[in-house]
């Protein structure tokens, strides 16, 4: 089998490598998260006095010299203090409400009535062609997605809105329209959007009957004008700033009803790009203050939680492992072992089944392997083979904590490919794996361990076999439909940018020049604010307001400073819209 390995590798190296990187990413990221969580768990036990006296002494000892740990402990105490305070305040508020209600003889029923009418009022506002209308369409989609309303209810609303736009004389901001694709639920299908997004769904990924006709709806946002004219931002739900590599909305319908992905099912998504940037990650969209903000995709969380990587069994062992266990002879030997010993199940071959199986197992303090289970499987045949292979491995050198062997839970992705051999690891790939592993260990968790495939490109370009299409994409996997964003984290500054408004209902966006990033202003009264901005940064402000239902816009290029900014508006005409769109896209 090693003979075929090299020939195969030169035949189609790119495809494998790209996927390989994605696999690698997941394991590394998982490990980083797991380690962080284990650390938190240990500190928690320490603070709650739940450690055994032996462990407590060891922890105290470590705490004396380890300043990083000291900081972590302080931080965790601070969090708990804050949570308690929030609790106290809630209690006081409850007491206040009870006291004042009693005093005035209020009835609970009255409260309910007030709240309900309040909601109606807001809805009414949303339906009126006030500035909120700019965003109403996208908000409708989000609700569909989040509250699992049936799309047929929301769809007509969208269409009506579109009609209104075309019928009226008014010029308004252009909106993205859905692109529709039909796929068969029981086949591997790839769709390609007009702007280049490629999404691949594996066969039987959806919770629908076999051979269902699925309609995929897609909206792509790559151009800055598209992003600025929608209610999208490049902020995370916790106020971090992101640089975008593209945003899409995607969901699936069967007979006009929303179709869900099966639990723990992943799809591959490729975002095209022009300039390669490192550390791109997937994010899921959420609405906040009427804008969509982002949360790092829960791809990893699902595995962390459902598979219970942080488990009670770590009770008796140290949870921070200083040295990870190792296959005797190192990773190269591990790959060699996998390559030699894996037998492609004949049944799977006949059925044409291939893919990556994620195996998790325990390496105990003697290096023995136990508790082998599949985290994410492909097919029972392949899953079984992967388990068999891991179980047949010789003992590893165990992980060490303070020089003592300890139990460690370990993840290993095994790639089954249907071209005569199973392990697709070439010497270059092994080197790549080693390099990225070292690099990943050196980076902190925040930077998130994404090793882009640029390295793969260089390493293999001598073969001249790489299709261009494979290089110019960010390839990521997701498990959740809805709003998806390909982003990386950026640092923030400490400047507050203030903009004076003459109309309350003004929507202000801040577009950065240096990076592909956009923020939405936070309005209070006649002021719109942007918090924690770097100072002296070249930016363009885009604002829109409505006077008597007529849209007025403002586009202003400036440098960020403490000075309060005044905006000058012009009525939005067709020419103006063209001009604004062009200018925004030139940024």
């Amino acid at each position, binding site marked *: 089998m090693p003979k075929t390995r090299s020939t195969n590798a030169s035949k189609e190296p790119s495809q494998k490598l790209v996927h390989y990187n994605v696999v690698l990413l997941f394991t590394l990221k998982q490990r980083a998260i797991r380690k962080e969580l284990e650390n938190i768990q240990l500190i928690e036990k320490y603070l709650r006095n739940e450690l055994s006296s032996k462990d407590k002494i060891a922890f105290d000892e470590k705490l004396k010299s380890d300043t990083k740990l000291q900081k972590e402990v302080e931080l965790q105490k601070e969090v708990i203090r804050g949570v308690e*305070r929030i609790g106290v305040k809630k209690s006081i508020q409850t007491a206040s409400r009870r006291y004042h209600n009693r005093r005035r003889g209020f009835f609970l029923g009255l409260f309910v009535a007030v709240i309900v009418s309040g909601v109606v009022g807001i809805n009414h506002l949303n339906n009126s062609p006030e500035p909120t209308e700019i965003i109403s369409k996208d908000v409708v989609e989000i609700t569909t997605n989040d509250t699992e309303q049936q799309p047929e209810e929301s769809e007509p609303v969208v269409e009506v809105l579109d009609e209104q736009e075309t019928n009226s004389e008014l010029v308004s901001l252009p909106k993205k329209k859905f692109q529709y694709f039909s796929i068969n639920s029981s086949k591997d299908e790839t769709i390609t959007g007009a702007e280049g997004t490629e999404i691949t769904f594996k066969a039987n990924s959806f919770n629908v009957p076999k051979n269902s006709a699925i309609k995929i709806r897609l909206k792509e946002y790559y151009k800055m004008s598209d992003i600025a004219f929608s209610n999208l931002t490049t902020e995370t739900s916790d106020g971090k700033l992101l640089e975008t590599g593209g945003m899409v909305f995607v969901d699936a319908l069967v007979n006009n009803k929303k179709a869900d992905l099966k639990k723990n099912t992943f799809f591959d998504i490729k975002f095209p790009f022009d300039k390669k940037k490192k550390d791109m990650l997937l994010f899921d969209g959420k609405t906040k203050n009427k804008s969509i903000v982002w949360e790092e995709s829960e791809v990893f969380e699902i595995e962390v*939680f459902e598979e219970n990587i942080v488990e009670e069994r770590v009770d008796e062992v140290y949870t921070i492992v200083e040295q990870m266990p190792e296959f005797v002879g190192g990773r190269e030997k591990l790959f060699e072992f996998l390559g030699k010993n894996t037998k492609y199940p004949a049944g799977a071959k006949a059925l044409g089944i291939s893919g990556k199986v994620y195996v998790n197992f325990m390496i105990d303090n003697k290096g023995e392997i136990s508790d082998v289970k599949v985290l994410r499987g492909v097919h029972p045949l392949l899953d079984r083979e992967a388990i068999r292979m891991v179980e047949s491995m010789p003992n590893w050198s165990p992980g060490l904590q303070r020089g003592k062997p300890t139990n460690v839970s370990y993840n290993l992705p095994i790639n089954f490919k249907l071209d005569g051999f199973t392990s697709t690891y070439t010497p270059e790939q092994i080197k790549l794996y080693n390099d990225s592993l070292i690099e990943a260990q050196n980076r902190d968790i925040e930077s998130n361990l994404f090793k882009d495939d640029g390295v793969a490109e260089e390493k293999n370009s001598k073969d001249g076999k790489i299709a261009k299409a494979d290089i110019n994409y960010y390839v990521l996997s997701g498990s959740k439909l809805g709003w998806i964003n390909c982003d990386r984290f950026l640092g923030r500054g400490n400047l507050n940018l203030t903009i004076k408004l003459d109309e309350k209902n003004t929507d202000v966006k801040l577009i950065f020049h240096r990076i592909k990033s956009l923020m939405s202003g936070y309005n209070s009264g006649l002021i719109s604010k942007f918090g924690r901005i770097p100072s002296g940064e070249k930016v363009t402000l885009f604002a829109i307001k409505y006077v008597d239902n007529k849209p007025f816009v403002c586009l202003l290029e400036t440098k960020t400073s403490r000075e309060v900014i005044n905006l000058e508006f012009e009525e939005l005409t067709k020419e103006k819209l063209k001009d604004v769109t062009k200018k925004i896209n030139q940024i």
Partner: protein
Amino acid sequence: MDDIKIIELLKSDKQDKAFLKLYKNYPQVEKLILSKGGSKEDAKDVFQEALIIFYEKVMGTDFKLTSAIATYVYSVSRFIWKDQLIKRKANHTTVLSFEFTSEEESEFQKAIEKEEKFKQLEGVLTQIGEKCLQLLKLFYYDGLKMKDIASKIGLKSEKVAKNQKYKCLERAKSKVSSL
């Protein structure tokens, strides 16, 4: 003594009951604020603030009851309102009409500054998401068991809730560290 009972309640996780009892001091405070240029809403806010400062005092390590709770809460309320008036740049004579001993002055001033810091902390914690915050509050403040928390917020099992708790702690820590 009612005061001692209130302190016992506060310390034994029956804060809701204790705070409701403390509200019998509210009318006095409301009268004060209304007479010093404030509204009923101001009075409500000031009183809540006073209660939390009192709570912090009780939970502090060196707490001793040196005066009647009613007197303390009233004095703190006065101080908070004076502070508010200064911040709102109210006219001088109103502000000057509040007098405190230097001891009171320094204690209350410290308490108010501490509150400002806490407010920041609470602010960032609300960013970890409602569900996370609820989970952490149920555990650390209400002292519920993980099993009960799981069923209360609709998580599959105690184990899932536990793991989720660590995840939420992680999120909260990263937020707080940015302060």
